């Protein structure tokens, strides 16, 4: 099946998986909330899937972890939706940059269950990383750099660790040493 993959996801990765499996559905957890996932998956009946049929899910966004709970809400809600729609979890290919996230599925399903196929050792399926890299041919001669600041600190979206770091820089009068920017909610910086 042909999909219009979102530009965020590398088509090269999806093509490799599509050649191996019959991908009947594809989505990116970053752009799909619980209700959207439910609507997308409700079109499918995994009882009618053959051995090679798969649903492809990409996950490189962050997840919300409640205190003392070892699985994130996205994984929990995905599991709940699949149970609700009777979608077999082992019909899912889960591609993520979260190395070791398969343990969350094992916690929810149990070790003996038929688990999703988790590919958790890739980071470049996200075009934000791979596109600039492939086209970058800048030749920088380190010895010719005229240093003006000890350090650079570019911060995008408001996050607690960035606030904490910003506090640290201000409280220790390091802004003359650390060239600092904080974009807050500017554009899509995160």
């Amino acid at each position, binding site marked *: 099946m042909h999909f219009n993959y979102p530009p965020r996801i590398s088509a090269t990765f999806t093509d*490799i998986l599509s050649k191996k499996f019959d991908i009947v559905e594809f989505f990116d957890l970053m752009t799909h909330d619980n209700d959207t996932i439910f609507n997308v998956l409700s079109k499918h009946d995994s009882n009618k899937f053959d051995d090679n049929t798969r649903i492809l899910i990409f996950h490189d966004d962050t997840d*919300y972890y409640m205190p003392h709970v070892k699985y994130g809400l996205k994984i929990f809600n995905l599991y709940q939706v699949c149970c609700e729609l009777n979608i077999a979890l082992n019909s899912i290919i889960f591609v993520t940059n979260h*190395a070791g996230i398969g343990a969350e599925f094992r916690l929810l399903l149990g070790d003996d269950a038929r688990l999703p196929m988790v590919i958790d*050792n890739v980071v470049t399926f996200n075009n*934000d990383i791979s596109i600039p890299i492939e086209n970058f041919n800048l030749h920088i001669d380190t010895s010719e750099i005229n240093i*003006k600041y000890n350090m650079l600190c570019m911060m995008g979206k408001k*996050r607690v660790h960035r606030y904490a770091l910003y506090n640290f820089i201000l409280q*220790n009068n390091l802004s003359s040493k650390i060239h600092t920017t904080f974009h807050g909610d500017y554009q899509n910086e995160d």
Partner: protein
Amino acid sequence: MKTRIYTNPPTTVNEKWINTPLIDAEPRILPRVPPAFGIPTDTLNDNVYMHFYETLGIGIDIVTETVFNYPYPYLSEKVCWPILHKRPFVLVGAAHTLELLHHKGFKTFSPTIDETYDTVDDAQKRFGMLTTEIHKICKLSLPDVKNVLLSFKDVCEQNFHTLKALKNNELNQLKASLNDII
């Protein structure tokens, strides 16, 4: 009917981890940098331009990753910028993220920069170790910073090429692992 859990307000990050008074920072919009060094303008996004602009005249980068108190090492495009610009960096991110970079073939900057912070799971303790290291670097004179930069010239060059080859390496690994399955 199965129960799903929704956060209110909707968020994908649990950030209630550190007792630091928050400071509202004024968003600052940087000017676009004109094309330079033959960089093809149609293939690079604004981030690259911004970072290129900010990196001129900079010794060591502080990368503030998307998450800090997180159960998984997390790499995003943010760590690519100092590698592309051939700069050493300190990584303000989840524990074991440097370890993941090593696993991907990158080299980092120990012992000049004490990177034991990467092994510490406790977020507050790790943050304290990071700020100690940043403070130490800030005490260096500019010529000393330049010397640090020069001492890592080969490492930065190697990291640059590792990054450029990363996607192909991962694609080859993916193909190999799929061949093993069936």
